[in-house]
């Protein structure tokens, strides 16, 4: 039984939905952040698999760029989180609701 691209794509979709659920269900800013990373990884997997299916290396280059952007995002995001934590001593995003309408 051959493992076709569809299998990987289904796995990627599952990982993506799990990440999205983490986004929506967890209050801890760090866990939400990790969920985002998971979603990015799911999409990366799709890039590579589709690249393999079509014989196109550009998919892997796209993954490379996603990784760079994710790294930058993590650096700034974590710095923000530390700054927020120093001020409020809490990592729960639900406490950051001062802009409530």
């Amino acid at each position: 039984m051959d493992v076709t691209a569809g299998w990987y794509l289904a796995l990627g979709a599952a990982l993506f939905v799990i990440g999205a659920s983490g986004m929506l269900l967890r209050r801890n800013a760090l866990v939400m952040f990790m969920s985002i990373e998971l979603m990015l990884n799911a999409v990366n997997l799709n890039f590579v698999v589709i690249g393999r299916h079509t014989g196109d290396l550009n998919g892997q280059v796209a993954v490379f760029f996603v990784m760079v952007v994710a790294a930058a995002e993590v650096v700034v995001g974590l710095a923000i989180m530390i700054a927020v934590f120093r001020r409020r001593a809490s990592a729960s995003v639900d406490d950051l609701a001062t802009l409530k309408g």
Partner: protein
Amino acid sequence: MVELVLFIVFGAIALAGALSMVLHPNPVHGALGLMATMLSIAVFYVVNSGHFIAAVQVVVYAGAVMTLFLFVIMLIGVDRHENLEESLPIQRPLAIAVGIAFLVLLGLIGGNAWITAPEAASPPNGTVENIADLLFTDWLLPFEVTTLLLIIASVGAVALAQYDPRPKE
């Protein structure tokens, strides 16, 4: 046959890691679960002939990024169990409904065809040479722009780290 085994074994690890990250109340465990998922995905990269990408995945994601996460978790001291009770009224049912709907719809779309293009004769070879060839020709400008992005990110991180909310004496 080898690929099927790899897919089943590491696909299970990836799903388990992802689920443990979402469901485990302690973020440290969650981070370790995510690391497992990322390593599994690195394996899939190798299987799909993304050798260079797989290495970067291990070094950057599983290595640097996740270490950074753990470091921050330890630093701000949230390595205790989180209260998983939902405080927002319709958040949880909405999230579950939306997640299931998403999967179902993807299934509907993918049930017809995940990929319409015919399979290529030979898979691309994701070696360092080939990737570099593309990066420094077709993708040169985006590549240079990412350097700018990284500089901005590091400057921003330093600035945020130095920011002191308390008024000066």
